[in-house]
């Protein structure tokens, strides 16, 4: 099947060897420059499939198919007349004759040859390395083979190499359910990217996930059994590690054999030597790009972004277009990865090799966070390492080389630890590169919004390519787009979500005025055209569910949130009347009004926790949280609690949480009012009130403020003459001291003002807007709110009070209602087809005499069925 190009050679020919990530990018660069129209382009591809996204390889194990990974749109090749030969690697180059011969015998004459052969995994020369059960991790075929072997004959796996790829491979083995070991020669994980401190943070987290790490030890031999398959590894410290399979991930070597064989110059440690145009130093007709190339700066780049730049550079050189002249003189090695769920990022001079540079380090070994910035003498940011929390990566990377507008330590401190407002992307200069995969600057992104009229991140991605590589810059892109849109005064859609063009406040008015009690009816009549008749979304369903619940008695809806269609609107927590935890179990929080509880009730809580094996903790809200309940246990637990006189504490709802109290006048020598009684009264009055966000309150018996009332949505502090009412306080991420709304109120005046205040907030706030944010946002702020609720400037106070009165009169405990309704109770099962079987991935392990979630169990995902299906009611 040998063909030779026709001697007439109507069009010059470009031959590309290797259709990997960089090869594909090179083809796109040719097409963009019109070279595919003027040239014949032939691609020799060793793998059985066209280029795919190798960077995302591991996502195969989270459900991405080989087709999803493909980078080659089939139309692209045909549209540009590119000839692709799959499964047919180049075997020889005759530079004198300018021909390439492939394995099939195909020989193609070239005018220009481009080598993009990538690299091959380095397998250390240890005995047994070729045994059955040894693998490398580079191609889709490698993954398929690893998966097959792991599923059919392995329970333990070892990865040789604790670098970036080794950790990816280890994550994959772990995900396949293997007991996974990592063997790393260096004294720490990811020795190239992180320093000692970062390695330590990484190690703790990786071990916490149930992987076993052996650092500072090499692999001496792969041990095999009688059948020739792997049974273990001998390590350089003499110990033996039993394992059923070994994945070598100990670095890569440029694939330069083809180049060596035809006499092209290669570097001492490998790599095809090229100049700044990516032309080989030996032959002007031959280029090399990507991981197989030794760049003009003497380095081989193992990352995709520099490869893309080389592809562009080579295409520009071949086109020889004036303005397209580019050169590749080296690249940034910044990376941000999510390995085993841990963010790891390094950028710039991460190891601090610049003369006279200084480090700023923040480390928190409890949370596995480590951040280091390298700063130059003049205060300029040179580089850094982030482990565990790489939030700031996009901004920091873009700031590299400049003097940051705020002190470096404030860039690494966690929010709340004395750091002022986080440094936003607005602080970046226009030249700052925000997307290093595609070398896109802030200025270009801004231009996409102002000149190309992009209004969303997906549009900006399409327009500039930013964000389409590793994706680590997408967050910064979002911030830039919003800032730019706001600055240019573009009308930003204020609608609640993709389903409703109205704000939450407008929907509230519609529901109240028209007495609408059905979400579907509201959507079909008032939703956006395209959303009508659909199923809504996760934003508007709970929002409308909450509005209906707040107004229930007044509009004639059922106040019980699981009634009829309303059940489908509730967030998961409200649907199960409990708080979902990270492993799929729930927490239970009974209401303890004002924090006051009798010994008998305390004993009941203790007994229930003991009998159901729940983890017990005193909360910051003066009550007790019981964690680790399985969904099918919730009704049993609540039957006991309701019998003992407890009610739902609504810890799961956007509704009143607690009214904390201090002990007050009854016992305290300073107290001037009965703060406990007032707290209980208020908690019982507003319990169950659904609102835009959660509501918290506290009552202090004197100005010493032991209940911290000024950090609450509505806080009350006793005075000699009555009560002072404070509103709009907040703890949380953005704390705010409450503002004084009114002074020296009587009990009745106090309650009336709170009724009005809360109902006005419920009516006008956005979804998930705490009172603190609402108070700052609404026009006129505190003065306006005071005018409305104290002086009745809008004439709505009577209505606000009667709405609250209706709520108070119709309150019913949700849990008491639920345990009496068999149809609702039937929903509290892990499996609809096996109601007696608990979810097998909800497991617990002991800690400090109680339980905690078994997280490694989650990583495995499933357990064999025979152990779980037994005895369950199967139809």
């Amino acid at each position, binding site marked *: 099947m040998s063909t030779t190009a026709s001697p007439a050679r109507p069009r010059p020919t470009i031959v590309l060897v290797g259709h990997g990530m960089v090869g594909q990018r090179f083809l796109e660069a040719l097409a963009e420059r019109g070279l595919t129209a003027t040239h014949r382009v032939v691609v020799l591809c060793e793998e059985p499939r066209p280029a795919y996204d190798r960077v995302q390889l591991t996502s195969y194990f989270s459900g991405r198919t080989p087709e999803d990974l493909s980078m080659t749109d089939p139309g692209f090749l045909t549209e540009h007349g590119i000839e692709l030969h799959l499964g047919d690697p180049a075997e020889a180059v005759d530079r004198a004759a300018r021909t390439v011969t492939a394995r099939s015998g195909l020989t193609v004459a070239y005018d220009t040859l481009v080598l993009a052969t990538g690299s091959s995994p380095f397998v250390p020369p240890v005995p047994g390395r070729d045994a059955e059960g040894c693998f490398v991790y580079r191609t889709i075929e490698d993954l398929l083979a690893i998966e097959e072997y792991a599923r059919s004959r392995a329970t333990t796996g070892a990865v040789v190499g604790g670098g970036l790829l080794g950790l990816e491979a280890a994550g994959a083995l772990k995900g396949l359910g293997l007991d996974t070991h990592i063997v790393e020669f260096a004294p720490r994980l990811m020795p190239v990217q992180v320093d000692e401190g970062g390695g330590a943070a990484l190690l703790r987290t990786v071990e916490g996930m149930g992987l076993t790490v052996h650092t500072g030890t090499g692999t001496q031999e792969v041990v095999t059994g009688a059948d020739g398959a792997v049974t273990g590894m001998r390590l350089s410290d003499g110990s033996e590690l039993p394992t059923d399979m070994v994945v070598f991930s100990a670095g890569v070597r440029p694939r330069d054999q083809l180049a060596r064989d035809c006499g092209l110059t290669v570097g001492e440690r490998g790599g095809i030597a090229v100049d700044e145009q990516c032309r080989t130093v030996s032959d002007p007709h031959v280029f090399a790009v990507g991981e197989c190339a030794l760049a003009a700066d003497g380095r081989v780049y193992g990352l995709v972004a520099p490869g893309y730049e080389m592809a562009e550079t080579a295409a520009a050189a071949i086109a020889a277009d004036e303005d397209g002249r580019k050169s590749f003189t080296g690249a940034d090695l910044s990376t941000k990865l999510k390995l085993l769920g841990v963010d790891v990022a390094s950028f710039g001079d991460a190891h601090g090799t610049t003369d006279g540079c200084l480090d700023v380090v923040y480390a928190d070994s409890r949370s596995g966070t480590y951040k280091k910035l390298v700063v130059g003498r003049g205060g300029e940011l040179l580089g850094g390492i982030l482990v565990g929390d790489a939030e700031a990566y996009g901004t920091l990377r873009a700031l590299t080389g400049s003097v940051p507008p705020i002190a470096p330590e404030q860039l690494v401190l966690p929010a709340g630890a004395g750091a002022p407002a986080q440094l936003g992307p607005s602080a970046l200069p226009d030249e700052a590169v925000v997307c290093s995969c595609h070398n896109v600057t802030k200025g270009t992104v801004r231009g996409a919004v102002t000149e190309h009229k992009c209004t969303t991140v997906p549009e900006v991605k399409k327009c500039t390519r930013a964000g389409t590589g590793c994706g680590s810059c997408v967050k910064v892109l979002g911030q830039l787009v919003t800032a730019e849109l706001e600055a240019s005064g573009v009308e930003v859609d204020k609608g609640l979500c993709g389903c409703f063009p109205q704000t939450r406040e407008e929907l509230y008015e519609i529901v109240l005025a028209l007495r609408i009690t059905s979400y579907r009816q509201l959507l079909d009549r008032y939703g956006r055209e395209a959303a009508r008749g659909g199923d809504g979304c996760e934003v508007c*369903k709970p929002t409308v569910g909450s509005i209906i619940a707040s107004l229930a008695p007044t509009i004639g809806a059922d106040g019980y949130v699981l009634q009829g269609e309303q059940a489908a609107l509730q967030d998961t927590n409200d649907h199960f009347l409990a708080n979902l935890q990270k492993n799929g179990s729930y927490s239970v929080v009974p209401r303890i009004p004002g924090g006051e509880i009798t010994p008998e009730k305390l004993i009941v809580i203790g007994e229930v926790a003991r009998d159901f094996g729940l983890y017990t903790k005193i909360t910051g809200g003066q009550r007790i949280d019981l964690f680790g309940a399985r969904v099918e246990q919730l009704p049993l637990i609540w039957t006991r609690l309701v019998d003992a006189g407890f009610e739902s504490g609504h810890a799961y709802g956007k509704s009143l949480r607690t009214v904390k109290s201090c002990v007050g006048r009854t016992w305290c020598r300073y107290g001037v009012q009965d703060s406990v009684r007032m707290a209980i009264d208020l908690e019982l009055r507003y319990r169950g009130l659904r609102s835009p966000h959660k509501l918290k309150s506290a009552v202090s018996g004197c100005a010493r403020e032991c209940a911290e009332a000024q950090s609450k949505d509505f806080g009350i502090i006793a005075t000699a003459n009555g009560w002072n009412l404070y509103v709009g306080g907040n703890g949380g991420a953005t704390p705010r001291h409450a503002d004084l709304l009114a002074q020296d109120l009587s009990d009745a005046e106090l309650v009336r003002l709170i009724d009005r205040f809360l109902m006005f907030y419920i009516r006008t706030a956005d979804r998930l807007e705490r009172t603190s944010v609402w108070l700052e946002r609404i026009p006129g702020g505190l003065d306006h709110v005071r005018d409305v609720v104290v002086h009745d400037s809008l004439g709505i106070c009577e209505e606000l009070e009667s709405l609250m009165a209706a709520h108070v009169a119709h309150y019913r405990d949700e849990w008491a209602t639920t345990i009496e309704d068999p149809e609702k109770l039937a929903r509290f099962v892990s499996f609809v*087809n096996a109601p007696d079987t608990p979810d097998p991935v909800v497991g617990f392990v002991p800690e400090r005499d109680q339980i905690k979630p078994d997280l490694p169990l989650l990583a495995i995902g499933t357990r064999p069925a025979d152990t779980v299906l037994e005895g369950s009611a199967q139809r």
Partner: protein
Amino acid sequence: MTLAPETTDLMVQLRLADDWFTVCDLGRLLPGRGVAALLPDGRQAALFLDRAGRLYAIDNRDPFSGAAVLSRGLTGTHQGRPFVASPLLKQRFDLSSGQCLDDESVRVATYEVRTAA
């Protein structure tokens, strides 16, 4: 003790390899919400009914957390396509393809589902 769950005589079935696996009576599904089913091999499927009466089934495991909770998420329609939002960290998954709408590198398995008398 009054009502028992309403029954419809229509059974929901999932396709597993070449067989249809019977899960439950259609009456157990609430439009706009999901239920979880335990499959014979220990995997879990999340089944959903939309308001038009269409059924969907995807893997119940949330790939971001590992917890088997997708059946407990809120459902909706995004650009005409049905989705569920994970109740843990809120990533959305297309119910007919399993594709995660917030991270294109993630997809969960889907199952063919039907009702049979």
